[in-house]
């Protein structure tokens, strides 16, 4: 069992847990993920590592399906049955020069350790964080602490710029020479970030989030197409060259169990009316 040492409600429906997992904390690098299983009947779900210290690993998740709904009922002192990692390849981080890091929605959490490491490697880091509205935006200060410039956007203009993340992204690319772009967020956002940076010919890395089961390369559930080749996001990724990724295929594969997810969620909600 892996104990939750603290919980924070970061934004509407977005939660942070610090989980005691010393082995993983010692090894974690930006871009890697963990797989957790809440209890004996739970499914295995991957979550990006948002931060770590000597003894704990920080995860941030949004309440969407049954597992994340159930997870959101836990508090500090509770525990999670299984917690394994760090999985996947770390993000390739060098001294590139000037870089842009884009985080959308819950993906904002994933870009924090990434921007921090980029900064540590003496890059000039411009971060763009975006969400649908003000209630869903979090960690602006934290991102600012590891960036040279931060641009916040919301779809409805309730905070920061009323824009999609791709707009400031395009403006910066028009304004100055950028050596690398990183984008982490919903697939549709990553797809449009890729389309935005393509004409500027700036290498762009995205962190893919397909459905996974074991997370160690054994099942192939997480397969994605990159440059026409099939890759396993869990062991070959999760980072891939955005200009080579088949995002439409990824979106279709993510929807493979929509009916089942809906059914599971409905049954869960029926069984505990107060949440």
């Amino acid at each position, binding site marked *: 069992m892996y104990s939750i040492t603290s919980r924070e409600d970061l934004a509407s429906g977005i939660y942070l847990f610090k989980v005691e997992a010393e*082995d*993983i904390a010692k*090894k974690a690098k930006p871009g890697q993920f963990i797989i957790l*299983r809440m209890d004996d*009947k*739970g*499914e*295995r779900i991957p979550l990006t590592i948002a931060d770590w210290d000597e003894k704990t690993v920080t995860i941030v998740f949004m309440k969407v399906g*049954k*597992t994340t709904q159930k997870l959101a009922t836990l508090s500090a002192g509770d525990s999670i*049955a*299984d*917690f*394994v*990692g*760090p*999985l996947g390849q770390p993000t390739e981080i060098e001294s590139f020069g000037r870089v842009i890091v884009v985080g959308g929605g819950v993906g904002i959490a994933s870009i924090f350790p990434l921007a921090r490491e980029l900064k540590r490697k003496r890059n000039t880091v411009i971060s763009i964080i975006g969400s649908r509205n003000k209630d869903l935006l979090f960690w602006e200060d934290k991102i600012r602490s590891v960036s040279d410039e931060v641009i916040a956007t919301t779809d409805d203009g309730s905070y920061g710029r009323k824009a999609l993340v791709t707009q400031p992204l395009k403006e910066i690319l028009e304004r100055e020479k950028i050596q690398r772009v990183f984008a982490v967020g919903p697939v549709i956002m990553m797809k449009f970030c890729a389309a935005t940076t393509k004409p500027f010919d700036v290498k762009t890395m995205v962190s893919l989030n397909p459905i996974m*089961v*074991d997370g*160690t*390369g*054994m*099942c*192939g*559930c997480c*397969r*994605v*197409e990159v440059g026409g080749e*099939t890759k*396993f996001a869990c*062991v070959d990724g999760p980072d891939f060259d955005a200009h080579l990724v088949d995002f*439409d*295929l990824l979106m*279709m*594969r993510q*929807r*493979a*169990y929509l009916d*089942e*997810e809906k*059914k*599971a969620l409905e*049954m869960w909600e029926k069984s505990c009316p107060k949440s």
Partner: protein
Amino acid sequence: MPEKLNLNRVPMPRQDPKVRRGNFDEVALGYTEEQALEEARRCIQCKKPSCKEGCPVNVDIPEFINAVRENNMREAVKILQSKNSLPAICGRVCPQETQCEAKCNLAKKSAPIAIGRLERYVADWGRAHPEVTAERERQPFSIVDKKVAVVGSGPAGLTCACDLAKLGYAVTIFEALHVAGGVLMYGIPEFRLPKEIVQSEVDYVKSWGVDIKLNQVIGKTKTVDEILGNGFGAVFLAPGAGAPMFLGIPGENLSGIYSANEFLTRTNLMKAYLFPEYDTPIKAGKRVAVFGGGNVAMDAARCALRLGASEVSIIYRRSKIEMPARAEERENAEEEGIIFRLLTNPLRFIGDDQGRVVAVECYEMELGEPDESGRRRPIRKPGTEFVIEIDTAIIALGTRPNPIVPSTTSRLKLTKWGTIITDEATGRTSRDEIWCGGDMATGAATVISAMGAGKRAAVSIDSYLKSG
């Protein structure tokens, strides 16, 4: 007056095919006491028993069968467990027909002794009488002041760990998944190997003091070199099957197309057949095509049937006699109504606008001259393309070695296929303190061959640590 030898083996009762195709309960029901005694009495107790030679873990076969004949189950359990830590598993999934039973002297004249069925009977009797297994001469744990690490808790890892623990070593197994057992848990279905039985054999291994650490992906959570630097004198690598192979044809990444590993893992390990009580879903669909001709293909097809599919086909490019699956498993599948589309090969998958598979286009094959595997090479028959409507496809073509352990361990020599080079007799790798067995050393093989490798490695590790 000596009784005339019964040339026919006692059949084992099985669930009716019409019933069992609708449930996940065990298909083979096991002998009753009378049946076990009757079958054991067929054994002629040869002076030179060759059955033993056929057993990769050297079970004292005539001795345990003799104990059954004398209805001394207590003794039979002890004889069996002295060589085999996982007898209830082996009694169910070993291909006895190519091993011990193939060597049985009776096989020359009639049906060989049903050694597997007797092993199963004795092991199950032992499970029902836990006081017997606890009765053994229990040595104090960890009498040898050396620690051994085992990577992976499948058949190779469990066997190696238990043999070393019995010799007095302090053994720690590192398992990547959330339960111990490896392929016995995620791969082989409940109806062929109930998970409760696997758990009880894992518990037996633990009863010898073996410490099993779950959720440890070696190469990620910690590396083999770190383990060795942390007080372990030797490491046995048995991380098991790796990346599933796909067909490499268009449309293979459509939704509804699974590797057999994924389909079986969802079903067996994650218990998707109990969804939504369990959280992991699976879409078995109504019309299912399974590609491949091995035991895993049979397992996947039979799982799909039990998950509610109305039509399940096995699509295989050669003919029935070239199928690598055990005859028994193929027959079980046929009895349950699995359709065999032989000499058939897929060309491409066809999807709908949601990216879901709806059909597979195939073509017919014919057999030509034997290839390097000795089997007749299948050749495409031109102009024979046809389409089968499906809503689920399962690819059961085998696996490639998982690169996580080899790529994170220094100075390990690999074959061109990515398996770890080992000495066949001992399992030792190119590094003195590292051994390897199971699929990572040999490529995909059987449970019992992995167990044999675990056993040989344990002997070699013991002599290395004693000399060092």
